[in-house]
């Protein structure tokens, strides 16, 4: 027995003991808090319970969109990874639930990711039953209730108004503390504009889970609060009429907006072509999606609110009223307006080479005389034109929830800032007839016509008529908000109104097609030049490429005596306001009478 070897053994044992005791001290005392926290995270899971979003109704209580619960199979890949061989779980899912896994999901299982993944959506009752019967075969899987948006048949006439929902993007999550990654949020349209009404607040369930992801015990639960039901100002019948009237015109692209000029409540808002909104909940095939986003008529884009186009002659309403109020011209004053207006070496033509003759403002509106407006526009001056444009509310977000794009109203400052060029008389002349740098949203066209119809009042545009307050259990009506008045001589508004009446009923009116409509109305056509090039091919108009054709506009209000409806029709590259845009309004009026939305004039 060697003494030093015995000492060696004793020393070794002591070292091991001290090392283990030290390790225990390190893990349990020094890092105890840390490991306690991890052990809590290990077994505690916080699940979000999706609240049902509020229902969306039209102004008359027609249901447009609502939520139904669907069931998804969700997995925690790391638990699957720890408990099953690859083919074992693929086979179990296939044999019992009939689910085929995508390569991405198989990869997630193989790599054992920590975050949950959705394995299958829209489970059938039979699949759910089988899953619960064979629960022990699916460690790491559970079923989650996911509310999905369902739409009624009227929704297809207004996908842009309703908009779609989806899971919040990273930036949305960062900017809005009320959003949760697995709670649906509005992505466009009403769903986005009034998301705070519709969303509700999510519920939470704290659950103790075991290492296989099985729920052992519910610690506490907070029920979700459902979103508020909302009633739109949209009249679903009128929206349908707008859609069908536009469709019947055969035009591929454009927008129709109808409001009540006495309140600025939006009754119809169409962007054409539309898209199938249900696809956003049911899912697109890659081919369908590609077709949708490469379509040259841009079905996903809401042209009515976010498109910018030169307005052309409908803008003459603002220039005309400004000129009257500023005394540039008096109501009955006649101005010689020929085929061409010359300033220096520059020539500005009238759309009609025949010219207009010596005419007053009513007649100038009636025949949409360019040379008349060149002259009064130039005398009014760019600053005052811009002033009146802003007075009407163009280029301004009168309702920030609805308008997110503002029209481009050019001015000398604007031109200097953006183009670094001086403002010339030619720019003012172009602006006088709604051309040049001016570009407005079709929705702003409604702001041109509505104050003429209501006698000079600017209201806050509204899409929301009422909402149901779940707390107080009652319906809150949204009252119209008067933003400002034009504060111009009412007589001048009447003069403009008369001019717009003559557009339809005058001898030289540009929209005589509306004479046959069952309701008397007044309006203004607009044909906005897009490209100068095509002028050369004037004889072969058929062959002008769609992208180069003029835009067609028509703004209108009816009934003439007591206007209840203001309409703006925009036809992208429609070529002629009178021939293309105005007939759409005529059809809208006709169908409105048939539906009983407006009474026929006797």
């Amino acid at each position, binding site marked *: *027995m*060697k003494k030093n*070897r*015995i000492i060696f*053994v*004793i020393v070794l*044992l002591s070292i*091991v*003991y001290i*090392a*283990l*005791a030290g*390790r*225990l*001290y390190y*893990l*349990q*005392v020094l*890092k*105890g*808090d*840390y*490991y*306690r926290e*991890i*052990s*809590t995270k*290990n*077994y505690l899971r916080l699940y979000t319970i999706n609240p049902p979003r509020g229902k969306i109704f039209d102004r008359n209580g027609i249901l447009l969109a609502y939520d139904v619960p669907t069931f998804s199979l969700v997995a925690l890949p*790391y638990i699957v*990874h*720890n408990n099953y061989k690859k083919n074992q779980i693929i086979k179990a899912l296939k044999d019992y639930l009939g689910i085929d896994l995508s390569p991405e999901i198989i990869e997630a299982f193989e790599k*054992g990711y920590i975050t949950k993944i959705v394995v299958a959506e829209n489970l059938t009752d039979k699949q759910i039953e089988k899953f619960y019967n064979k629960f022990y075969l699916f460690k790491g899987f559970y079923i989650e209730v996911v509310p999905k948006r369902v739409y009624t048949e009227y929704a297809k006439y207004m996908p842009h108004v309703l908009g779609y929902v989806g899971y919040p993007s990273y930036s949305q999550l960062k900017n809005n503390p009320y959003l949760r990654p697995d709670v649906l949020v509005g992505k466009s349209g009403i769903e986005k504009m009034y998301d705070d009404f519709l969303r509700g607040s999510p519920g939470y369930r704290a659950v*103790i*889970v*075991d*290492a*296989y992801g099985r729920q*052992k015990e519910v610690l506490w639960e907070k029920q979700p609060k459902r979103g508020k039901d909302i009633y739109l100002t949209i009249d679903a019948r009128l929206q349908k009429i707008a859609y069908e009237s536009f469709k019947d015109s055969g035009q591929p692209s454009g927008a129709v907006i109808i409001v009540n000029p006495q309140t600025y409540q939006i009754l119809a808002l169409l962007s054409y072509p539309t898209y199938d909104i249900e696809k956003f909940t049911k899912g697109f095939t890659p081919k369908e999606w590609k077709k949708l986003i490469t379509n040259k008529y841009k079905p996903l884009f809401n042209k009515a609110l976010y498109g910018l186009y030169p307005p052309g002659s409908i803008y003459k309403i603002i220039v005309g009223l400004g000129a009257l109020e500023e005394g540039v011209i008096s109501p009955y004053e006649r101005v010689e307006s020929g085929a061409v207006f010359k300033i220096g070496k520059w020539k500005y033509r009238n759309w009609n080479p025949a010219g207009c003759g010596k005419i007053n403002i009513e007649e100038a509106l009636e025949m949409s005389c360019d040379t008349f407006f060149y002259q009064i526009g130039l005398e009014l001056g760019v600053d005052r034109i811009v002033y009146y444009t802003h007075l009407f509310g163009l280029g301004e977000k009168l309702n920030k929830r609805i308008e997110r794009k503002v029209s481009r109203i050019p001015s000398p400052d604007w031109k200097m800032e953006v183009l670094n060029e001086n403002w010339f008389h030619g720019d003012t002349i172009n602006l006088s007839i709604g051309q040049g740098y001016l570009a407005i949203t079709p929705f702003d066209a409604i702001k041109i016509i509505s104050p003429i119809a209501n006698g000079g009042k600017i209201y806050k545009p509204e899409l929301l008529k009422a909402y149901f307050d779940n707390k107080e259990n009652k319906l809150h009506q949204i009252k119209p908000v008067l933003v400002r008045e034009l504060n111009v001589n009412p007589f001048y508004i009447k003069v403009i109104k008369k001019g717009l009446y003559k557009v339809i009923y005058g001898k030289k009116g540009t929209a005589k097609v509306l004479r046959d409509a069952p309701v008397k109305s007044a309006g203004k056509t607009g044909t906005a030049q897009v490209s100068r090039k095509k002028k050369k091919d004037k004889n072969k108009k058929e062959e002008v490429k769609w992208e180069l054709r003029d835009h067609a506009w028509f703004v209108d209000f009816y009934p003439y005596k007591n206007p209840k409806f203001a309409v703006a029709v925009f036809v992208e590259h429609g070529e002629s306001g009178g021939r293309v845009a105005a007939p759409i309004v005529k059809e809208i009026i006709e169908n409105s009478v048939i539906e009983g939305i407006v009474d026929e004039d006797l």
Partner: protein
Amino acid sequence: MRIYNPLGFLKNIDYFLFVPIIVLIFWGVLNIYSASINEYPNIYIKQGIFGILGILLMVFLSAIDLRKIVNFSIILYVIGIFSLIFVLVAGDVILGAKRWINLGFVSLQPSEFMKVIVILVIAYYLSDKKSPISIFDAIVIFFIAFIPAILTILQPDLGTAITILFPAVFIIFIYGIKKRYIITALIVVLALAPYLWNHLKDYQKNRILAFLNPEKDPLGTAYHIIQSKIAIGSGQITGKGFLKGTQSKLYFLPEQHTDFIFSVIGEEWGFLVSILVLTIYLFLVGRIFYWGLQIKDNTAKVVCFGAASILSFQAFINISMTLGLAPVVGITLPFLSYGGSSLLTFSLLIGTVLSAVSTYKKEKIQF
């Protein structure tokens, strides 16, 4: 005048050894109850029965003369070797390894018992040898352990095989073989290491790799090490309380009632009790080692050193494993881990030590 007293052997039992072990056994049953109640509601009763059997076995052995036990060990050794061969041919497969003999009412693991038998046979062989032993004796001793170890590796069960070999090596070391032989042996082992590595099973390699680098594969083998560390660490100073360990109750711990019972103790009882457990093992090892030095009889010495080496090896390797300081090898925590074979093996071991002690005491008094 001596009056024959049938219970006279009781006063020769070393209670410093015996009492802590009884405490460990019953405290082990309590913790097995906590670790297994959700999954296997009855096994703590089984462990309790084995515990009583183990205590009776120790009392019984302490009354028997050590030399009789050691002489009998040759027969046990032969039976043991045949059992190991039988296990390989016709044993029950549990968890991918053939380790058990099914006796109908209970399954036994002959490799466990082999740990003690090997020590006894070595004690028998060395009973009349003087220290330092010759190189020939060292080789004989090594082969006494090597044969059952190889049979155990084939099961495959690397952990138990190493435990069978360890006391033999320890005894050779402490009995004073020349330094140059030790150095030669170390060189041979190092030279063979790559070859041995290639012959390890994949799961064994994975366990070693996972131990060396747990972050590389946090959800595979290393998962067990991480969860065990979380369990023990989260126990903090005073523990989560009996039956309140979340890591064990919710199955985050692997094999929590067998190899990872110390994690359950760490989680539910905390630092103070964990240190106490560790200290009890040190005390027991020290006590047995003390007897090894104290008793002059060679047979008793070998039994004590062998027992001390196995007890310290298993206790400290098992605890190191749960603390993330050693790779996961299937080595039980003496008297605390669930398992009849393990419990009876250690009862046998301590019983033999008690026998050595009481034999020594008796002879010292009587002669």
